[in-house]
């Protein structure tokens, strides 16, 4: 109980499940980053940029996990919604941008 903000308080473990969902998403970005890197065989250095962006998204998710988990635990406690508007929009935009960049690389 030394960390009241991260101590689970919900028998349904909603915050934990949500954090794990972010973790799976993080790993999916790592996999996509690895695919981009492998693509460098044919496309050259330009794909390294895509690799770096995908990896940066994964790292950003990783470093912000604790904040989102605390936000979710606090929301369950109040109880009140905890819509992560910024995280959601940034994530969607990142995937769209990576896809667009992939199209550009194909057209090169």
């Amino acid at each position, binding site marked *: 109980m030394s960390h009241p903000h991260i101590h689970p308080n919900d028998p349904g473990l909603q915050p934990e499940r949500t954090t794990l969902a972010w973790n799976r998403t993080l790993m999916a970005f790592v996999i996509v980053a690895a695919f981009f890197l492998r693509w460098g065989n044919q496309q050259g250095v330009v794909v390294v940029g895509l690799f770096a962006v995908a990896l940066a998204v994964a790292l950003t998710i990783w470093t912000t996990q604790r904040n989102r988990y605390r936000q979710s635990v606090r929301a*369950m406690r109040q*109880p009140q919604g905890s*819509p992560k508007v910024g995280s*959601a929009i940034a994530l969607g935009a990142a995937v769209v941008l990576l896809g667009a960049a*992939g199209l550009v690389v194909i057209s090169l």
Partner: protein
Amino acid sequence: MADSPHEPEHSERTPPQHLAQRTGLSARVLGGGIEPDPRFTLANERTFLAWIRTALAFLAGGVALEAFAGDVFPVVVRTGLAVALLLIGMVIAAGATLRWIRLERAMRHSLPLPLPWIAPILAVGAAVATGVMLAVLLLP
């Protein structure tokens, strides 16, 4: 039905929380309304993330075709499929984000939840891509 987002339980658990507490981006994106049960917001978040991973799978598929398929397909077919997969991934990612916002808004006004129009895109996209691949591989 206990988890049905149509029946928010906040009225029994707590007085309605109004948007006055929201700031900046959240207020602009979500509009007004009453805070839903926090479980519904978290469920919406996990569903959104599942769609994002689906979109990422399409991106990875498109890149993998270009990176690994080599001469298995004619170049036109390979590139066409890769472009299609990347486009579907982008549409699903954008659609998932919009859907997440629309669901958050609907929950805050006790409105019926919008239909997932990205679901048929996913189904048709996956079916067509698989069909084209099978056709190219199996037909002489």
